[in-house]
């Protein structure tokens, strides 16, 4: 049985956020450093930034009461056993 604590997912999520911000900053720097900043590019940047902050805030809001130490079962051999048992008992022959 492969069991991991829930905070493993949180670590993976934070890693994803770090990658997200690296790419976001890279995109922003591309616009700023090439001297092509326009009203349109600022509006799009603002919308994307606002949506991203809103998403991260909503994630935090809905997950603030989560007990991160509880475990999650990734693989359980009993699942495979019951699956095989179901398969053999429901087998039909033509």
């Amino acid at each position, binding site marked *: 049985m492969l069991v991991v604590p*829930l905070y493993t997912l*949180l670590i993976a999520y934070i890693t994803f956020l770090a990658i997200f911000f690296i790419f976001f900053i890279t995109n922003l720097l591309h616009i*700023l450093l090439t001297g*092509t900043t326009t009203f*349109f590019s600022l509006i*799009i940047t603002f919308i994307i930034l606002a949506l991203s902050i809103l*998403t991260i805030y*909503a994630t935090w809001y809905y*997950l603030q009461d989560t007990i991160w130490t509880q475990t999650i079962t990734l693989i359980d051999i009993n699942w495979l056993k019951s699956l095989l048992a179901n398969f053999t008992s429901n087998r039909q022959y033509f």
Partner: protein
Amino acid sequence: MSLRSLIKQKSYEKVMFTARRHPITFVPYVIFFLLLLIVPFGLYWLLNNSSLSVYLITPTGRTLGILAASVYFLSIFLFFYTNFVTFHLDVWIVTNDRLLDMEQKSLFDRVISELDLYQIQDATSEISGFFPSIFNYGNISLQTAGAIDRFTFKNVANPNKLRELILDLSAEDKKYHEKP
């Protein structure tokens, strides 16, 4: 950094115009983005009305679902923004001396080509298709005598007018270069 310093503008040089892709060519990305935004809501509705709905109310199922949705939304925001940047950074700059083509192929792939105006031999503008005809945008191809044999402005607004302007500027520059 300004555009002036980016192109290393010479003292006698004047930027005549800058051209970008027509904004209408970005609309398919916006539609695709909006469709991708709807997907999780549809998926949630499907899961909620199926036998899998019991997993959504368990603490781990809920946590997994929220984290997955968050990752999905942030990924499509980034995807959209990266597409916008590659669209926005395709710029063609025409000065009274040269022509610069700055093309952002992907986030880490940028190509800048330069051409002296007097090297232009002929120019072709092309408006082909339903939307280009309605919104008046298309391509301008420049045949040159230089190392780059063809120079293309892609999906720019008013291609016929721009072609005429480029040819006028080229004729002016040729006069200057042909002076004994």
